[in-house]
Structures are given as C-alpha cells and as structure tokens.
C-alpha cells in the first residue's frame, strides 16, 4: 500500500468526480454511498499505509511518482512522503473526515444539491490529503490552494444567499492574500536552496552553521519563515487575516465541522510544524508566530464572549484555539501544537456537529437567544456536546486538558533561556484565553440546553437527530475523552507517548532538556492546577451570569455598553477593512484608473490624435478653394519654396562641393 500511497488521495477525487459528473441524476443513497465509500476506503488505505510504514521502521518514507513541473534547475515532482507527523494528519483527516461524511448524509438529507455537496466534500478530502502527504512545498501548495477552493465552494454552497457567496469569495480572497506571502516564501526558499523538496531543504548541509545572512535574527530564513507564516495566517485564520472564518459559518454545518474546525484551518499549523527546522533557525520568526498566536487566541476569545449565533461562538473559539496551536509552535513546542491540533480536531468537530444537530433540531435556528432548555429534548446531543465543552474548556481528564496544559507549560518554560518576560507574558495571556474559553463555552451550553426555553414551542418541534448523525457524535465524544491520554504527562504516570511518537520529527520534549525531570513534574502539576482553576472560574462566572442570575448578564452588557458593542461587532475589523482597503481600491480602479487613466488619458490621446489629424486634413482640403488664381499663387509659393531651398538651405548638397573642389 505504501508504494501506492497515491491511492489514498485519489479515492476521494474519484468519488468527487463520479458524484460531480453523474451524481445529479442519482438518488441520494447512491451518492452518499459513493462519497462515504471513497472516503472510508481511503481511510482504510491510509491505515494500511501507516501500518506498513511502521513495519518498515523507516524514519521517513518518500516516493517520487512523476515530474509535475520542471524548468531549468527547478523541478517540482509529484512526490508523497510519510513520517510521524504525516501519520497523525492523515489519520485525523481521513478519520474525522469519514465520520463527518457519515454525519452529513443525515444532516444534508433534505437539502438540494446533495450530489454537489458530497462532490465538493470529497474534493476537499483529496486536496487535504495532498496537502499533508506532499513531499515538497509546491505540491503542498497544490493542496493548500485546493482546500481553499473547496472551502470556497462549500461556504458558497447555498449560492442563492448573497451572504453565502460573499463569505465564500471572502474566504478565497483572504486566503489568496496569505498565499501571496506563501508563494514569496517559496520563491525565497528556492533562491536560497535551489530546491523546494522538504528533505533537500531540511537536511541541507548549510542548515548547520548558517552564514549570518541566512539565519540569525533578520536572515533570509527569517523572511522566508515570516512569509510562509503569512500564508499560514491566511489559512488558519490568524490575526489579521482571521476575518473570513466567522463568515465561513455560512456553509452547512458539517462543512464548518470538517473544514473550518477539524482539518483545513489547521493546515497553517501543519505547515509551520512541517518547516519547524527552518523556524528553529529563525528566532525572530518564531517570536512573531508565538505573539500572533497568543494575540489571536486571546482576541478571538474576547469576541467569542458575546456572540449569540451558536456557530459564530464556535467559529471564534476555533480561531482562538488555532491561536493556541501557533502559540505552541512559536515557543518551539511543535509536538504540543500538533497534539492540540489533534484533540481540537476531535472536540471541535464534535462541537460543530452537535451544534449542527441542535440547529437541525431547531429547524435551522442558530440564535442562542431563541433556544434554551433543550437538554431534555435532545439528550444525546446534549451529552456529547457537554463532553466536548468540558474538553475544550480543559477539564481533566478530557482531551483538551492535556493538550492545552502542555502548551501552557511550554509557554512558561520558553521563558528559560530568554532574558525577557516574553514567556511569562505569553503564558499569562494563554491562561486568560483559557479562562475566557471556559466561560463562553459554558455560556453556550447554558443558553442552549439549560434554563427555560425561549422559543415558540408550537412552531418549532424539537426532535433528536437520526443515528446517522448521532453516531459520529458519540464516536467523537469518546475520542474527545480518551484522545488526550496518549500524551498523558509524566505525573499522570504513563509516559508522553505522543511526544515520543513525534520525536523523530521534532526531537525530544523541551521541558526535559530545560530543567531536571523532578522539577519539571512539580512545575507541571502547579501549572495544571492553575489552568484547571482558571477553567473553573470561567465556568462559575458563566453559571452565575446565565443560569443563576440571567438578568445580570443584560445589566452587565448595559453597564459596559461600549465594550459590549465593540465585542459584538468584532472590534469593527471588517468595517475597517472595507473602509480602508476594499472601497478605496474599487473607487480608485473605477474613477482613476479606468475612467481617467484608461479612457480619458490613454484612449483620449489616441482618439485625440486621430481627431486632430482629421481636422488638419480638413484644413488642407480648404486650400482647394477651386479658384484658379489661388492655385496660381500656390504655384508661385511652390516656386519660391524650391528656389529658396535650393539657394538658401543650410548645407544644401555640401558633400558634392567638397568632391568638386
């Protein structure tokens, strides 16, 4: 199987093609069997491939299938590779993807364009797999752009809704802005290494003992890493390019779960992790990554506090969680970042799916203010969602706890070796973000499932979703619980499997190097305790505000009106972009470039010349007065001209005079 790794991505592509071309005429059953079949099959293939990979016991599997682009000394092969990092990603993508496919069959059952949906979804799987399996930046970029495309398609799935198509367009374009950086990053890397293959670059002899202009604080590498990180920001919705993700919620919920929570948006993290060697040599870039990640985590969390659209809350929480992952990478804890990526995939997918099930139950209602007290009506959804919430809020022993914990720990540790207080600051903000997360997540739970119902019982008949939807919920719930244990830190007993597992890629656990094991354990314990406390505070506040004294919430909102509205309007960032970038650009293009520069000046000049020439012609025409006497005078003029020229022209026929004399 490993030799035929290309089958793994190909299967979804086939599924997509088949559905896209013929699905239109088929009943849903066949369509979704094709879709699920192809993804499931590719999941199995992936598993098989992984097994073979471990059996072969090689550190890195790399296979060159064919030359895709080749010009001069540049060659981009269709090369796939597999190492531990890839394994994690592939399994997450195919696994979670598969579950969500199953879920979607239920969720989309009554939607039009069923075949389109699954065709797109499979297409996404294909590109995502390309992305994670690629063995060079160019091929990775294929997946990178491809997932962008499929997210564009899926967000705009309800293309009759303007908001939907807008959101899709926005997503694609913002991603393009990121890609602008990513491409430049690739160009720069090629300029430095004359290749874009991961192995060739990472094992490049020059990486050790870099000349200063390459690594160092402002070296080539720094710029390369920053440019690549720009791409990552676009894809993973980090500041300042996060704006598209909340809007992306226009897409069907399974899409939000799969693309905008579990997989695609983590591509940025993946790329950073993938190029960790470069980042290691670019301290400045690392710092930037950490800061951006941390800032995003906190910033998005604050917005999440006040959102009332259930999916928007989750969206911002996603942004914030992604921030966490970057934070981890920024401080060099790549394994922790990937770990959080994995667990987040589980519980955030779960959250979205559950939310989807809620929306399904409410018949499309998304506003939490019109929900409440659903816990009795849709028990399974409630239970699973609660688990997910606990996980994301970081309560032990749920998955989120471990991952978030290790990130915070690594932030804290990153202080060592740095004189400044950067590490502590990062940690502080991370912690705050964690607290906020706990708060808004429980706010969501309480508003949705507890308290008394705020919707019209007669209109909406709340009903539990079919098992095709609940099944995946349960599976994911289980994963959100146990998912974290693979990385149970030492003081929980059990070695940190996950880190060791990724060790061949990222190297050992940072804390172990930085200080003695014993001290490490104490520190971990204390930090864990602090984190959990923070989570509890968040939970408590949420409980107090939204269950105990609901009226207080409004009071608070009123008393802090400016803050509240600012948060509600997401700091007016969209408006800002519109004002500062979009509208001016359009205005200039229309009124300056097109109407003035193009039509008036350039074309005006051209037509002007033509017009002037015609006018001149008319002038010439009017010398033809038809009067013989005038003509005679013209002849006289001619005579004068000729005689004058012949006699008085300067240098008239000079050369001959010389010849004669």
């Amino acid at each position, binding site marked *: 199987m490993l030799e035929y790794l290309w089958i793994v991505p190909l299967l979804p592509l086939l599924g997509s093609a088949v559905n896209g071309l013929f699905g239109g005429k088929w009943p849903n059953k066949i369509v979704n069997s094709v879709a699920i079949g192809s993804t499931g099959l590719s999941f199995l293939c992936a598993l098989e491939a992984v097994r073979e990979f471990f059996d072969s016991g090689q550190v890195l599997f790399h296979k060159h299938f064919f030359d895709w682009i080749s010009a001069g000394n540049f060659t981009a092969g269709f090369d796939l590779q597999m190492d531990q990092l890839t394994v994690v990603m592939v399994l997450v993508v195919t696994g979670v993807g598969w579950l969500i496919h199953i879920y979607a069959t239920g969720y989309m059952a009554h939607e039009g364009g069923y075949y389109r949906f699954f065709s797109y979804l499979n297409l996404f799987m294909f590109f995502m797999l390309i992305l994670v399996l690629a063995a060079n930046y160019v091929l990775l970029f294929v997946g990178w752009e491809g997932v962008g495309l499929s997210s564009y398609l899926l967000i705009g799935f309800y293309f009759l809704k303007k908001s939907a198509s807008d959101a899709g367009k926005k997503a694609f374009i913002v991603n393009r802005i990121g890609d602008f950086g990513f491409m430049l990053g690739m160009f720069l890397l090629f300029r430095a290494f004359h290749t874009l293959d991961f192995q060739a670059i990472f094992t490049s002899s020059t990486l050790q003992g870099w000349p200063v202009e390459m690594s160092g604080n402002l070296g080539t590498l720094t710029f390369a890493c920053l440019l690549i990180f720009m791409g990552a920001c676009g894809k993973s919705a980090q500041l300042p390019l996060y704006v598209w993700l909340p809007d992306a919620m226009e897409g069907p919920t399974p899409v939000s779960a799969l693309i905008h929570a579990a997989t695609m948006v983590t591509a940025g993290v993946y790329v950073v992790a993938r190029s960790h060697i470069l980042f290691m040599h670019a301290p400045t870039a690392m710092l930037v990554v950490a800061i951006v990640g941390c800032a995003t985590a906190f910033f998005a969390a604050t917005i999440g506090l006040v959102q009332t659209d259930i999916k928007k809350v989750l969206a911002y929480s996603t942004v914030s969680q992604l921030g966490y992952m970057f934070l981890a990478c920024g401080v060099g804890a790549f394994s922790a970042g990937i770990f959080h990526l994995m667990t987040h995939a589980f519980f955030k997918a779960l959250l979205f799916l559950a939310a989807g099930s809620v929306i399904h139950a409410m018949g499309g209602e998304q506003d939490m203010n019109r929900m409440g007290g659903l816990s009795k009506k849709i028990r399974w959804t409630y239970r699973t969602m609660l688990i997910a919430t606990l996980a994301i809020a970081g309560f032990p022993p749920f998955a989120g706890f471990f991952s978030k914990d290790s990130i915070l720990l690594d932030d804290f540790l990153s202080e060592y070796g740095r004189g400044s207080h950067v590490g502590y600051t990062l940690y502080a903000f991370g912690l705050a973000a964690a607290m906020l997360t706990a708060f808004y997540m429980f706010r969501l739970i309480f508003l949705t499932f507890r308290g008394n119902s705020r919707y019209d019982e007669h209109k909406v008949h709340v009903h539990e979703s079919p098992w095709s939807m609940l099944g995946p919920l349960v599976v994911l719930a289980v994963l959100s619980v146990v998912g974290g244990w693979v990385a149970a830190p030492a003081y929980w007993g059990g070695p940190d499997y996950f880190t060791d597992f990724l060790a061949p890629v990222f190297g050992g656990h940072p804390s172990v190097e930085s200080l003695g094991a014993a001290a490490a354990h104490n520190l971990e314990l204390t930090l864990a305790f602090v984190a959990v406390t923070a989570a509890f505070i968040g939970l408590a506040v949420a409980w107090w505000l939204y269950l105990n004294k609901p009226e207080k919430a409004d009071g608070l909102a009123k008393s802090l009106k400016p803050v509240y509205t600012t948060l509600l309007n997401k700091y007016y960032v969209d408006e800002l972009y519109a004002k500062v970038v979009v509208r001016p650009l359009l205005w200039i293009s229309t009124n300056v470039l097109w109407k003035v520069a193009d039509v008036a000046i350039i074309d005006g000049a051209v037509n002007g010349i033509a017009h002037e020439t015609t006018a001149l012609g008319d002038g010439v*025409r*009017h010398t*033809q*007065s*038809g*009067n*013989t*006497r005038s003509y*005679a*005078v013209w002849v*006289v003029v001619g005579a004068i001209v000729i005689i004058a020229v012949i006699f008085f022209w300067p240098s008239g026929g000079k050369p001959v005079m010389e010849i004669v004399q």
Partner: protein
Amino acid sequence: MVPTNYYVILSAILFGLGVFAFVFKRNIITIFMSIELMLNAVNLAFVAFSQALGKLDGQVFVLFVIVVAAAEAAVGLGIIILIARNRQTLNVERVDLLKL
C-alpha cells in the same frame, strides 16, 4: 555693344510681369495673354544667350517655342470658347465648380 545680361535682366522683368499678370488678371483671355508674355520673355533670353554664346541653336529653340505657343493658343482659345459657351462668363473666378 549691349551686354547680354541687360537682355537677360529684361527678360526676367518681363517674366515677372507675366507671372504678376497671370495672378492678378481675371479675364481668362488676358491670363492666357500673360502666359504668352512669359513665353516671350523666355524667347528673349534664348536669343540673347544664343547671341552671347555665338551659337544658333538658341534661335532655333525660339522658333520651336513660337510653334508651341501657337499650338497652345489654338487649344487654349478652344477651351476658352468652350468655357464661355458653357458659362457665359470669362471671369476665371466664376469658374470654381470643382473645389475642396
């Protein structure tokens, strides 16, 4: 003995007067006459030069010129008659149907 250049200068003057007449007379016949005047100026020049060069061909040319002038006169006057017949005018300025 009269220097040749006197004759030449005289011919130039006559030629110039011919040009002047051509431009400033309105009557077609008179205009045509001014052409004859110019030709006469040329003839004078020819004769003068031939005399100065002591060659006779200059005088031969004069004869040719006279013949040509005669021919032109015949055709020219024919045309003038045609015009006069078609338009009942001999004023050259009234003959400007073709213009622009």
